[in-house]
């Protein structure tokens, strides 16, 4: 599970507050109301998927602050 450090939060490219850091991730497996999702760089994180349910492994979702906002076509 990749965790973003506090230091990374301060890097100029990252501002979680604004929506531009919403990133597309691929659902790998389901874990209750959450899903383990993988980024292009191979890192994974646990994402809440209630707002885009149902999802299945292989779906691509747009994720912001560990919450999936939209299923991508």
């Amino acid at each position: 599970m990749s965790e973003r450090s506090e230091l990374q939060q301060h890097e100029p490219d990252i501002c979680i507050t604004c929506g531009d850091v919403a990133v597309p991730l691929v659902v790998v497996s389901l874990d209750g109301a959450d899903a383990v999702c993988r980024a292009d760089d191979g890192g994974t994180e646990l994402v809440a998927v209630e707002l885009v349910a149902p999802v299945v492994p292989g779906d691509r979702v747009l994720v912001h602050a560990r919450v999936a906002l939209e299923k991508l076509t």
Partner: protein
Amino acid sequence: MRYVDEYRDPELARHLADRIAARVEPDRHYKLMEVCGGHTHAIYRYGVHDYLPESIELVHGPGCPVCVIPMGRIDDATAIAEAHPEMILTCFGDLMRVPGGRGSFLDARARGADIRVVYSPLDALRLAVDNPDRHVMFYAIGFETTAPSTALTLQRAKADGVGNFSVFCNHVTIIPAIKAILDSPDLRLDAFIGPGHVSTVIGNRPYEWIASSEQMPIVVAGFEPLDLLEAIAMIIDQLSDRRAEVENQYARVVRDEGNPVALRAIADTMTLRPWFEWRGLGSINHSALQLSERYAEFDAELRFDVPGVRVADPKACQCGEVLKGVLKPWECKVFGTACTPETPIGTCMVSSEGACAAYYNFGKASRQRVELKVKTGA
């Protein structure tokens, strides 16, 4: 990288630049406002200006949530944290350096307050569950992109009966900000580049009044350089054809109806405030969210005494004018001298989405490239 490389292809960018150049009308000046701070960042980062004719001016809008937060709201949260030793105040990383009247959260942490950065409000909730003898307050901030994650967290907190968790809510909404910009007498705009990820949540329909009543084009755009160039091309097409429509360049992500489930989660947990103070734009009616009565038990403003601090912006700071698009970042008196990302005076220099920080980090290179082009005749 899949889904990224195809939106950064220089050949396609030149093709779009040619399309834009072919359609701009001679002797006409175009003022387009990108509402979203993420677009401002992308424009400077990728040098989108370099592909545009000089007659197209991009004006930076108020869509950086960190930038529009008034200093008093930082002081209020600091005061709550310092008055309650059991408190863990949690926030997104960009907020740590936002100056309040009594310094930033980093300064308050140095004075002894327990203030921690989280990546998601869900992490703040987890912190509360893991520390039952402490109280965890999450400083919620952001437009409609971020509000769903706060809403979902509140719903989980209620369902799980987490009693030591609260939210200090500063969520704002984009439509009243656009209305305030249009009411500003200082600025005449021709069109808007609409926010991409806010629209993922609210959809395209809330913008229809811009086209019908204001007779201005708005094109919702993604965040890659080709997204922005294509959106600008669509706007120039509309203006040349004397059309004013809501168009969606970012259809691979944004649906017309937005995400109804996310909107219901927001409506369940939050309600409109009568008014909210915006830095630079002043008080705007019904422009922000507070927790709904159903979630009153999680409302930090009800659970704790809030001083309600109001602090005037520093006199030297011209963030207000920058946020309204009246001034360019480099036209501010303290830009790059007294105010830098390391020692910001104004909020626009704090967040990477802020126009000043974006220009400070990337814009100088962009201007140098323009100067080089002029010198070499390229």
